């Protein structure tokens, strides 16, 4: 494998012919061998950004896309050598799994014996070597995803792009494959960008996360730094849930006041009502298996959620006092 290449985007924006802005001009740098997760709701521009990187879309004038020292802004997708795993996998139905994986090598005029060998190696990497002769409609969703990955890797890309790789799979499978995929990608040492709208996926798969909203880059950093120190309320609310109340902190106890206090539901500690601070009411209790969720109502009508350990035994109607850990 060659030296992993860094990606540098300068002032990449995208405006559609009808005038709508898909992306505001943004700068982005991804180090060689790093895995970056582009996280955001649908319509935030993350897929557009991905398509600009692989050349399927052209950014507005003034933008630059560089792979290492090479300016690839004007290069066609055929020439860029970017491996892409599409959201719908885009496997060719008229070819077997093996032929799909070997296709990139076929167009590079690699001799048949060599490319079959390499295609089989790739299928072995994704643990699908027995399915080499299967046609695409005979494969399950998870298997297709792996074939798509093998196909993208077969061409030894300098950059790997994955567009919502796990979204098409059902929840249990997704959970299982997430960790597998993370480990596999880390072992490959290819500069990788993953687009997703699922925060768990972003946190597990990405070395760093870039949160996007409405064509803008909101914040970029490790999962932990984004979670603990969200730059904007949008980021805070997108990674995990953010509760916001008008109150005051006396010590770590929530008391009546008019400041804006934000915290995570699991940072709430419930205790017997005391003399100072809010006396809150438990409005509802939901047992979730690994935790208990309470709907809390303050005397002034404000409401928020709190997450407690599974052995928490308060019930609807109980009065409690709320304090916040880590604050």
């Amino acid at each position: 494998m060659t030296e992993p290449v860094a990606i540098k985007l300068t002032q990449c924006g995208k405006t559609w012919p009808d005038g709508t802005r898909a992306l505001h001009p943004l700068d982005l740098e991804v180090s060689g061998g790093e895995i970056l997760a582009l996280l955001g709701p649908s319509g935030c521009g993350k897929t557009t950004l991905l398509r600009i990187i692989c050349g399927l879309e052209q950014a507005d004038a003034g933008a630059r896309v560089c792979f290492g020292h090479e300016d690839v802004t004007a290069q066609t997708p055929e020439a860029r050598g970017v491996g892409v795993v599409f959201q719908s996998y885009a496997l060719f139905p008229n070819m077997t799994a093996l032929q799909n994986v070997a296709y990139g090598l076929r167009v590079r005029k690699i001799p048949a014996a060599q490319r079959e060998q390499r295609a089989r190696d790739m299928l072995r990497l994704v643990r699908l070597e027995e399915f080499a002769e299967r046609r695409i409609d005979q494969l399950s969703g998870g298997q297709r995803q792996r074939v798509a990955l093998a196909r993208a890797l077969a061409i030894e890309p300098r950059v790997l792009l994955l567009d919502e790789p796990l979204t098409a799979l059902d929840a249990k499978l997704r959970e299982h494959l997430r960790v597998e995929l993370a480990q596999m990608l880390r072992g490959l040492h290819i500069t990788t960008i993953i687009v997703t709208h699922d925060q768990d996926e972003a946190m597990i798969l990405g070395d760093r996360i870039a949160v996007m909203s409405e064509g803008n880059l909101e914040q970029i950093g490790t999962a932990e730094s984004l979670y603990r120190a969200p730059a904007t309320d949008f980021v805070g609310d997108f990674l995990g849930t953010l509760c916001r109340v008008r109150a005051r902190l006396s010590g770590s106890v929530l008391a009546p006041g008019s400041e804006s206090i934000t915290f995570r539901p699991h940072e709430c500690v419930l205790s017997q009502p005391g003399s100072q601070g809010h006396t809150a009411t438990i409005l509802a209790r939901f047992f979730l298996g690994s935790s208990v969720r309470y709907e809390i109502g303050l005397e002034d009508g404000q409401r928020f959620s709190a997450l407690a350990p599974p052995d928490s035994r308060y019930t609807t109607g109980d009065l409690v006092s709320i304090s916040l850990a880590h604050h």
Partner: protein
Amino acid sequence: MNHSRIDTRIGTAITLAVAAFLIGPVILSVLAGLTKNYFVGLSSGLTLRWIGEVWALYAETIWRSFAVALATLAICVVTGVPMAWVLTLHRGRLARAMEELLTLPVAVPGLASALALIVSWGTVSGLRGSIWFIVIGHVLFTLPFMVRAAGASMTHADLTTLNEAAATLGAGRIARFLHIVVPNAMPGIVTGALTVLTLSIGEFNLTWLLHTPLTKTLPVGLADAYASARLEIASAYTLVFLLMLIPLLVGLQWLAARGDRRAPLPVNQKPRP
């Protein structure tokens, strides 16, 4: 049951009457072509004599119709399938206008198209008396059917995404067209092919004006037979024509049924968000 019994009874009666009206004359024609003497009726016995005479008189027209149909098909495939692909990729107003334009030779009476062709190209030596003159007319009339059928298949198979995937793997345009587009549009291409063959074999309006005594096709021969030959021969000739059509029509019906039975979602369906 949402429908009254009277409704069903009337519906059944009219349906059977219409079916009789449509098929009755066909059966009549088939019988006339096989009966020894039409005036006497079936009691005169069945014979293949008329079909034999048809073959002796009109075999050439039958071969020629086949040849014209195949030539028309070849040209339609080579020009129509790439055109269908371009129209699938481009979804703008210009593409839609081109599609409408291509169907004009079908919307406008064949008479007019033939007249235009004769007036513009009829003076080119060698072309007017050649079978290619007829082939051109047939191509103009059948091309939109090939384009439409192939295009429907291309859209259904989500070929735009597959095209992008192949591009990221490094394939150039011609490679993508031959490896990805054509194989995956096969159902539509085959349907289009059968349609083109059926329409070409039966084409009359254009061909009557474009033909010369040396380039008669089957329908042209039929018109001659209807005007001058015995009823039995004309019927037998019609029978031969119908026999040529049946395998094509059965093939088209079979393809249509197969298309319905297959999974309605293409292999690469985008998941719901």
